[in-house]
């Protein structure tokens, strides 16, 4: 049976959102429902947003006409659609914003979206066109269009189709304030950011497993994992990385202490991977806060005051995503250098490209090229989206966040990083098998990681087709097989 995640506007985590993205059921917390009822009652005048969009109100226009034109007029997204997972995460995240009880929306607004999520009805939402400033207006409007029964496409067997949903929708007679509140926040950015932090945590843990394996393959000197040395500098991420990698190398006869200083891709692992953890920790705080924050405008304060502020602006998450991109790229980059080292006979002391009798065989030569190409691609995606801004909406929205671009870039980097780590693990497993031929044993954690690789991929003897191995280990990485398992990607 599928797990149910309760949305209460206060405790949503990136991991819970990842479960919803992957299909978990959702429900609204009772207290949150009560808060929503209260805040909606405080709005009083449903035309609280009367000052906005005067052109919608010219002539004899019914309330329904205005709301409909408002929602449809914001359906201006372009480009290829978001994945179902990102769309579901965005839907749930927006409900959680409404559940804060600061937006003046009735619970029915949440119910309409939860109903779609629980019926597995996913709107087709174009992935481009939001600057993440007055929020992710366009993508959220494409979602609301379906929820409100204003047409639009949904996913069916992997295809975008138009379906009559009349019998399935929760009837939704939106006020103008509600229509605005359902789209007025950088929530698609936040949802992508949440999936990104969830994945990043898995990949940084995976990177530690890959590091331990590589340490054994290159017979690393463990002085670089000296806890005392790292504590003397004081960055917590580095200390923790050293502790955990050390633990995985327990029992290793391949690694030693105080033999010789290793090159940076080995020796400086705690500095690089550790700083990635330190950044991720901060990013998780920002993203979790955003998931449970009142990302809307105008806001209904507890005493019923309506406040026009800028809570929709995506800057906090945009900067966090740009920073995360940079450290993830560094993790990929240093992993590639370890792959280079392992496949380089003169540097590793192992056969070139990790296959005996190379010459007729090229072994894992190309795996390193693939890693290099992916790392280079990550560098491109690391360009900080949030440093750009283009004025929009008649001088009014004159500084925007570009958060969705930052978040989409982060997701792209995570896919590349997963494949780079898969290559490091594949090369590491191959290298460890070669080392163990000499009867020297590996660290227990490293050995275990090698065994996980071997569940899906056999040891290379002669050349074979490489890509199925890359895909197989890539799947293991995404499934969390090197990170304590469990849970969707």
């Amino acid at each position, binding site marked *: 049976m599928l797990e149910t995640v309760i949305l209460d506007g206060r405790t949503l985590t990136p991991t819970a959102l990842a479960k919803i993205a992957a299909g978990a059921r959702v429900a609204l917390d009772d207290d949150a429902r009560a808060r929503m009822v209260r805040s909606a009652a405080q709005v009083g005048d449903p035309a609280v947003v009367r000052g906005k969009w005067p*052109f*919608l109100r*010219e002539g004899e*226009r019914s309330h329904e006409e*205005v709301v409909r034109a408002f929602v*449809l*007029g*914001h*359906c*201006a*997204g*372009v*480009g290829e659609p978001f994945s179902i997972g990102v769309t579901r995460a965005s839907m749930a995240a927006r409900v959680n914003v409404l559940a804060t009880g600061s937006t003046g929306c009735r619970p029915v607004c949440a119910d309409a979206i939860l109903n779609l999520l629980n019926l597995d009805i996913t709107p087709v939402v*174009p992935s*481009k*066109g*939001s600057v993440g400033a007055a929020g992710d207006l*366009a993508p959220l*409007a494409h979602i609301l269009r379906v929820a409100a029964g204003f047409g639009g496409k949904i996913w069916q067997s992997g295809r975008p189709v138009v379906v009559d949903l009349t019998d399935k929708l929760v009837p939704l007679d939106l006020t103008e304030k509600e229509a605005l509140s359902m789209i007025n926040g950088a929530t698609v950015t936040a949802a992508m950011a949440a999936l990104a932090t969830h994945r990043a945590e898995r990949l940084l843990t995976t990177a530690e497993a890959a590091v331990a394996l590589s340490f054994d393959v290159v017979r690393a000197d463990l002085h670089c994992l000296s806890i005392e040395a790292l504590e003397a500098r004081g960055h917590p991420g580095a200390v923790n990385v050293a502790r955990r990698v050390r633990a995985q190398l327990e029992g290793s006869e391949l690694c030693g202490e105080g033999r010789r200083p290793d090159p940076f891709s080995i020796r400086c692992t705690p500095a690089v991977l550790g700083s990635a953890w330190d950044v991720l920790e901060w990013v998780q705080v920002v993203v979790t806060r955003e998931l449970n924050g009142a990302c809307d405008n105008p806001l209904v304060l507890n005493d019923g005051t309506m406040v026009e502020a800028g809570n929709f602006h995506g800057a906090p998450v945009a900067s966090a995503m740009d920073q995360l991109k940079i450290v993830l790229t560094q993790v990929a980059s240093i992993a*590639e250098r370890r792959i*280079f080292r392992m496949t380089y*006979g003169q540097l590793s002391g192992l056969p*070139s490209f990790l296959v005996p009798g*190379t*010459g*007729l*065989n*090229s072994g894992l*030569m*190309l795996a390193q*090229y*693939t890693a*290099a*190409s*992916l790392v*280079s*691609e990550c*560098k*491109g995606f690391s*360009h900080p*989206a949030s440093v*750009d801004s*283009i*004025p929009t*909406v*008649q*001088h009014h*929205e004159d500084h*925007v966040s*570009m958060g969705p*671009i930052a978040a989409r870039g982060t997701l792209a980097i995570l896919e590349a990083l997963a*494949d780079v780590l898969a290559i490091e693990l594949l090369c590491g497993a191959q290298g460890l098998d070669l080392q163990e031929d000499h009867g020297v044993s590996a660290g227990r954690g490293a050995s275990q990681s090698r065994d996980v690789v071997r569940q899906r991929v056999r040891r290379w003897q*002669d*050349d*074979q*087709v*490489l*890509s*199925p191995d890359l895909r197989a280990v*890539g799947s293991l990485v995404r499934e969390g097989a090197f990170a304590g398992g469990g849970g969707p990607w």
Partner: protein
Amino acid sequence: MQPISLDGASLSLASVVAVARDGVLVQLDADARARMESSCAWVQRAASGGLRDAEGRSLAVYGVNTGYGSLARVRIGDADISRLSWNLLRSHAAGVGPIVDPVTTRAMMLLRANALAKGASGCRPALVDSLAAMLNRGVVPEVPSQGSCGSSGDLAPLCHLGLVVFRDDADLAHESGSAWIDGERHSGRDAMKLAGIERLIPGPKEGLAMSNGAQLSTAFAALACWDAAQLVLDAEIAAALSFEALCGVRRALHPAVHALRPYRGAIACASNLRRLLDGSTLVDSLPDKVQDAYSLRCTPQVLGAVRDGVRFASDQVLVELNSATDNPLILLDAEGDNKAYSAGLFHGEPVGMAADHLKLALCELAALSERRIYRLTTGTLSARLPPHLVRGDRPNMGMMVPQTSAAALVSENRSLAWPASADSIPTCEDQEDHVAMSTTAARRATDVLGNSRLVVAIELLSAVHGVWARQDEDPNAVLGAGSAAAVAVLEDVLGGRRPSVIPAEDIERIDLALREGRIVRAVQQAIGPLEGV
């Protein structure tokens, strides 16, 4: 259309498009076949130990009887020469990520076939025949898009193709890659069986011949250059409509102005704009306006530089389309017994830099277009057009949100414009110590092209609303000859002069019309050919 003859010398961007998109047939030119046979005969002699080096030993030829990359130091026995190629195809099929779209894959196949037709690769004509048969019959291998550094060529992508083209004696389905035929996905082996195309057992050097060259980079770049050349014209048409809607000042387009700073692109752009606007009564209709903002006034300077950039990229790609990109090259006219010349023609740098420059050009095309959209939708800047271009008898938001969409696309382009070819990461035990990253550059160029086309679609949608608003105001207003044709075709695409209630759907309609070349075609039918890039 007549089948296109592959001779290694006369492939054009238009013929790439004709084959890759429109399915025009291909065949190997007779002279090219003869050249290929001669160079192949030399390789086969070398492979059978029939050639000696200065010391009287059997001649070592890279990749024929040596290992690859840094493994060139290892000599391969005569008996293993076919296995060497087969191993290359298998171990180098190292791509990851999403599958390349079928059109680009077809372009890559065509380009590889034409590079081999040059006759310097020492492979059998049968390899080109196979690629031609696959193109003609519609066998499209699955090629992962990520993982190539573009040096020594697009090894991984081309080896994924090679697994379908070649086989060994065991002929195992799981070692044959995968391919589509007649709308179904099969193993490479089964797809080729269904197509009735015999898979080849690799001859000497044929692994290299299959894989050494930046053909995936060039395939992306070639299609992007072709589309960019049309998009420049579409952008000029959009700019002309914005000139109309904003009542621009024509003096900025005067030929004498551009003769004083005679960039070829700027001169052509100004000339096209003048022709598009010829006869307009909206242009120059605001007597108090002496000059426009940059997004209108500097259109010839910006789009002119875009034109020059697109032309540079296209010229580079055109060279690559008709080049041997293999290593070693077999130069039969060379002196001495050793006709094999190891060099670096596979290196993707020229294509990578061209693609990066193309990206930059398209970024600016879109950036300028977005500023005109902003101006059209901003009441205080638009010479009294309705705010957000809201008009019509049904409630709508006009172009308020599409302008934001355009801004997002432009900003994304700026990130994608990061020059991939400026990066390099050493590979292959430091033997391949500078690589091109051309594949990434070219893939990103395709992304930027798609984004930029959407921005132009949004400008066309905004500008046509602006023009309609002017015409609502003054039914006697006359449009320029080109603008009028553009408005007519847009009215057809959009289903009349209706308000844009669901902008995404209208943008999609125009984007499709742009992809089909409808708008530029209609305009050229009305006023004759526009000056191309």
